[in-house]
């Protein structure tokens, strides 16, 4: 469990980092290192070059803009967890990030690292899917915007080009009369989720569901949006019956299973967690509607 030899690079700007990624053979970006370093020590990953983004100041920080939040990709998960701005503007992100690993790993782990690594049990990609967040990536020809729904390409693989670097995450502001909830099921609190659900829901003035987003992690290589359940809920009052109907739809989501966690078990979890997150999100939306 000793990593093979590699060269370490510590660029000071995005341009320098992109230049390195464009010229080096078999290079990997190092963000917080909470997944990559164990993979290297296990010799599952063997890059010849590591490009550490930790010294690029412009990649770090949380700022409010007209749409919501603009978060630097290298912002630590712990900083997001402790941010009042995040708690106010995007309570779903604040709620979910407390489930990411341990406090010690959140001190090092970054939001961008987690989104790019795309572990099926990770929490942040599920939030990103529920919120339809936008990402900014920098490459040799400049920056481009990527909708999160287009971001996952394969198991543990994003759609970034090899020489591209994720620079910013744009998180939308939670609208009025809205509520959200994040729940996951795992064996121990700090583990990757066996299944996780992020739900956000907005009521209209009559108290009916104007908009709802339900994202499920752990069912597939990428977070899945429950389009059918969302459609069934839209226009409904968020009563127990409607939520149960949506949960029943959620229970039919095709899930990747294995001997330990079979697909039908994950479907059970999906139905339960969808019902529970919808219940919490609706109740929070109703509270927010009355304020």
């Amino acid at each position, binding site marked *: *469990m000793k990593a093979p030899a590699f060269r370490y690079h510590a660029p000071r700007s995005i341009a320098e980092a992109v230049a390195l990624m464009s010229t080096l053979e078999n290079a990997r970006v190092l963000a917080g290192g909470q997944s990559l370093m164990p993979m290297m020590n296990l010799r599952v990953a063997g890059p010849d070059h590591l490009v550490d983004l930790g010294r690029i100041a412009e990649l770090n920080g949380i700022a409010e803009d007209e749409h919501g939040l603009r978060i630097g990709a290298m912002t630590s998960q712990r900083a997001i967890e402790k941010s009042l701005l995040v708690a106010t503007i995007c309570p779903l992100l604040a709620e979910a990030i407390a489930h990411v690993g341990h406090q010690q790993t959140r001190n090092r782990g970054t939001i961008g690292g987690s989104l790019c690594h795309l572990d099926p049990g990770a929490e942040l990609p599920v939030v990103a899917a529920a919120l339809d967040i936008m990402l900014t990536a920098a490459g040799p020809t400049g920056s481009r915007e990527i909708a999160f729904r287009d971001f996952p390409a394969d198991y543990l693989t994003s759609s970034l080009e090899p020489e591209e670097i994720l620079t910013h995450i744009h998180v939308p502001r939670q609208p009025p009369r809205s509520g959200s909830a994040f729940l996951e*099921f795992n*064996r*121990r609190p700090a583990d990757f989720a*066996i299944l996780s659900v992020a739900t956000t829901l907005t009521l209209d003035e009559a108290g009916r569901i104007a908009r709802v987003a339900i994202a499920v992690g752990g069912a597939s290589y990428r977070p899945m949006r429950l389009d059918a359940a969302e459609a069934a809920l839209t226009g409904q009052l968020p009563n127990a019956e409607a939520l149960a109907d949506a949960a029943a739809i959620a229970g039919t989501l095709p899930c990747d299973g294995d001997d330990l966690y079979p697909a039908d078990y994950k479907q*059970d979890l999906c139905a*339960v967690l969808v019902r529970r997150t919808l219940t919490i999100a609706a109740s929070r939306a109703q509270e927010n509607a009355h304020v």
Partner: protein
Amino acid sequence: MTELPKTQADPHLRWIGRNAPRVEDDVLLRGGATFLDDIAMPEALEATFVRAPVAHGLIRGMRLEAARALPGVNAVLAFADLRAVLTTDRIPLALPAGGLRFDVDPPCLAIGEVCYVGEPVVLIVANSRRIAEDAAALVELDIEPLPAVVDPVAGLEPGSPKARLDTPDNLVARTKVDYGDIAAAFEGPAHLVRETFRLNKGGGHPMEPRGVLARYDALEDRLTIWDSTQMPHRAKAMLVASLGLSEHQVRVVTPDVGGGFGTKAVFHPEELAIPAAAMLLQRPIKWVEDRFESFTASIGERDQVWTVEAAFETDGRLRGIRGHLRYDHGAATPYGIALPFNAATNLIGPYVLPAYRMDIDLCLTNKTPAAPTRGAGRPQGTFVMERLLDRAAAGLNIARDEIRRRNMIVPAQMPYTIPVKQRDGSMMVYDSGDYPQCQSKALDVAGWQDFPERQAKARAEGHYIGLGLANYVEATGRGPFESVGISIGPSGKVVVSSGATAQGQGVKTMLAQVVADVLGLEPASIHVVVGDTSATASGLGAYASRQAVTAGNAAFAAATMLVDKARKAAAELLEAAEADVEIHNGMLQVKGVPGHGRSLQQIARALAGTPGFALPGNLPPGLSAASDFMTSGLSYTNGCHLAEVEVDPETGGVKLNRYVVVHDCGRMINPMMVEGQILGGVVHGIGMTLFEWMRYDAEGQPLTVTFADYLLPTSDVVPRVEIYHLESPTPLNPLGVKGAAESGTIGAPSAIVSGIEDALRHLNVRIDTLPLTPPQLRRLVRAGART
């Protein structure tokens, strides 16, 4: 036997029974400990092993040239290379055991055939571990795969493939436990319970994995091995035999050890391969196991399949139990048949079992060899008995506590003999204990009587809580002996040396406390040397919850002998009658004349001798004493565990809300350390019940080789464990102590599972497999909801 002085009569009885701070902790907490990997030896090379990538196969060839050519690589060694310094092909590990049909001693590197994933095949020695791993990636093994045996039931079927080609078949041992008229027990009207239980493999998983550093000194023709082991004297014996050296040429030292839990008790192939290579290359070599190796190459256990039936009277009293235990022994027999025998005998527990017949088959499989891990088979046996009692209680409509009470051995029956022969040839005898009181106290503490009311109230609020109950015994203090020497030289320092070994459980404190108690000194002033074969000629070490019993009593006897000698010398020096001399705070003084005395240091100086002068009283030289405590039988610790759980029937999730242990290990030398042992044991038992599972696929590939996949119970999932004590001193040793190291593990699975079944009683959920995963529980809930 020396009589233990009464507390009030003897002013020196100040340390036994106290929560003395541990003498180990200062250096551990300051980060100053020296674990194997901390030993500074810049000239040492580092090693890694190329291990079998398949569970079973024939080695048709290996290409080592590319690895040998890599810069920084010193040697790439296969078995044939090491054979030059070995006396035999196989490590002579075999323990004598009646039921063994043949022994399977492992070689230090595979010879021709590989029999489990992780078996060492090639040893690479390089300037650094990193380079060694680079070289390992260049080794090409040409292995012809053979069918793998992965299940102890299928492996014993006629026509099963063989797990090893060098054995007649997979049935490595067949034995039984058999007493009473079992046929009669099942005749006539009886309440019958029939079950199959499947218990899966786990491990010890010490935080510090195994490790060996070997240095051969050609000038002195001596080999020194620093070994993270629980049994340095046994390691030395294996090295002496395998390397053809004499005893004076081999020294085994254990540095600070970061946990053992059984994993480091058995001598593993690497412990020979590294010293052999150090001799061959004449260079010091260090190998520190990494976590992948720890999962695949370190022993583990717990795989057992039981088919059992129990006959009960209609009032709930046991008539008899019979059945068949099939046990997955892995690919070798490093520790005889101890595990299934412990399991089968510990099934009996604190209960009167009039007739018992358990047929035991040990199956070789293509998995890492099995050897005792904390509990050593006993949690499994206890699990079977406690499940059978819960089943019968439900079937006969008797409360779970009541059916146990009706079957319990009572104090008036002590010592209680069970006609089962143990491995030392003696009968199984429970020496002491009050089992009914232990259960009764646990029920009171946990609020057993009021629980149904709380349960109903919680249920009304949508919470499914349950309270589980389990009783057990543990045979502790296994012999044959342990030795302790105490010497005080002219420096006045008290040095205690023992064949006992320390892995973090507080053995040094235990020995210091016992000696301090007799000498009237502070434990912190006593220097304890354990785990060094050059400091103690003979010893056994850490296994079977034994060191307080064996080494503790040896220390007590040696300290008492030392004081006797000091008293004789002091009487001479003080010109007083021996009977008038007493020891107080390390001073030998004349009774009633405080201040008129000699310190232990002064006596040690006098007994060190002065050229030409006589020794005081013509006593033999030196202020020292040594004692070997030889056991006369096993002392039985017992306990009752209650686990309060909450189950989420929709997810299969289980949460432990509360955990109560009432424990009786006789007299406690240091209750705080006893509680540490119990707590750690309970945590291991929680792991075995809900989390820990060493999984393999159908080809014998291990599936859980990181702590992301093999789940240990973390502090998030462990409730506060409330521990209470009874103290029934054993008559088998002067201190009255029994062991406590494994006990916590034994009761936990039964108590937790009983609690889960209680929470889901309305669904008639019956659990027969460990560990219990959320999907399995969810499946049981679904099945229960359908009926």
